[in-house]
């Protein structure tokens, strides 16, 4: 192939799906290469949860009352702390510029980045939650609801959090600002997430709560990729 096919213009390419998969697998591969860093949120989650019985009281009756809230708050914070790295690396090595200049819709690329984030933080957190819940003596019968609520909720957290991460990627110390920006948006997820687990403990149906979590996820899935793309453009314009 010649070095340059000259000035012949090309039409905009197809293959947005291929680009999506490429960005997704690139992110996962990078995360696997740096397993230590990728495991940070999970380690943080496990540490916080194991410290509570030691710090408060090993009394199962007491722990069972606060367990749903603790499990959810700790998962939320673990997801929040991992947001700063979402776009930072790409910003520093110039990949973000290339992502924005790629002849693909930017929202598909941002969605791929968020998927990686969720697969590396939200999903492991949700899957490890039942194990850690035993430490807090979470009453039986609510474990499945806990995992399900975290699966749905953490996906929303990743999507919404990425907006904040995208807005602050150009700033030297964006971490605190990201938290301030998106914590208010995290509150509904937290309320309905813990609500689902508490309902399951009380023997009521957790379905209404899970349905609302699902609705929040659908809404953020629809709007967040565009918001992230717009935020990235604003950040790089700065």
């Amino acid at each position, binding site marked *: 192939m010649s070095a340059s096919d000259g000035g012949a*213009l090309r039409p905009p390419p197809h*293959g947005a799906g291929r680009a999506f998969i490429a960005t997704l697998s690139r992110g996962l591969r990078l995360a696997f290469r740096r397993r230590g860093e990728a495991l940070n949120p999970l380690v943080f989650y496990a540490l916080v949860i194991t410290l509570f019985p030691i710090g408060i009281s090993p009394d199962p009756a007491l722990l069972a009352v606060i367990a749903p809230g603790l499990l959810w708050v700790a998962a939320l914070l673990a997801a929040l702390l991992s947001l700063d790295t979402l776009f930072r690396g790409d910003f520093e090595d110039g990949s973000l510029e290339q992502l924005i200049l790629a002849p693909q819709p930017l929202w598909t690329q941002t969605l791929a980045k968020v998927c990686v984030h969720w697969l590396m933080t939200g999903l492991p957190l949700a899957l490890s939650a039942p194990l850690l819940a035993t430490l807090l003596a979470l009453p039986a019968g609510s474990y499945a609801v806990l995992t399900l609520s975290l699966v749905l909720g953490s996906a929303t957290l990743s999507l919404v959090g990425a907006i904040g991460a995208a807005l602050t990627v150009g700033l030297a110390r964006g971490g605190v600002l990201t938290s301030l920006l998106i914590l208010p948006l995290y509150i509904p997820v937290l309320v309905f997430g813990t609500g689902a687990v508490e309902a399951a403990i009380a023997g009521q149906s957790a379905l209404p709560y899970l349905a609302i979590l699902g609705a929040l996820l659908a809404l953020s899935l629809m709007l967040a990729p565009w918001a992230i793309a717009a935020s990235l453009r604003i950040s790089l314009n700065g």
Partner: protein
Amino acid sequence: MSLRLQARQLACERDDRWLFDGLDVMLESGEILRVEGPNGSGKTTLLKILSGQLDDYDGALEFNGQPLRACRDTFLANLLYLGHAPGVKAGLTPLENLAWYQALGGEAPDEAACERALNDAGLAGFEDTPAGRLSAGQNRRVALARLTLTPRALWVLDEPFTALDREGVAMLERRLSHHAKAGGSVIITTHHALGGLQRVRRLRLGEALA
């Protein structure tokens, strides 16, 4: 169809200072436009505006007679931008880096083409070494391998000679001249002499302004 990029009365203000004002730029097929100027004169900013990254400017920017904002898809499909940062992931091998750029351009994965491009860039034997363990010059070469891997009509290159050795500089100069002869266009900033190139137009920033 050939390429024409035109900017009229371009002006950009940064931190209460006009970087440039009333700038007219015209670039057609087969031309190399060299943007010159002292440090801080707005070369990188101009390149970012001309590559459609920055929206924060006054004036009109047209690609083939259409406003750039209206034909962004076509423009991006024909643009290859290399910035200060090479855009090479340290955790991935050169081959994986190039494969991502290929997919980003909407092309089918073609490992043989990636290997050929790396070979042309003088990186034979380093295909599977993580880019983080390569030198700055080698990382630059990985980025430059995209010039052959993903053919585009318009190259916008911001200091592409950084960290390259003498042989790499010669290689890149050959490539630039070949691209221009074949009808492609280049916008480049460099403090390098660009000795062997013909049809280089110069655009000087940072002088006419008070």
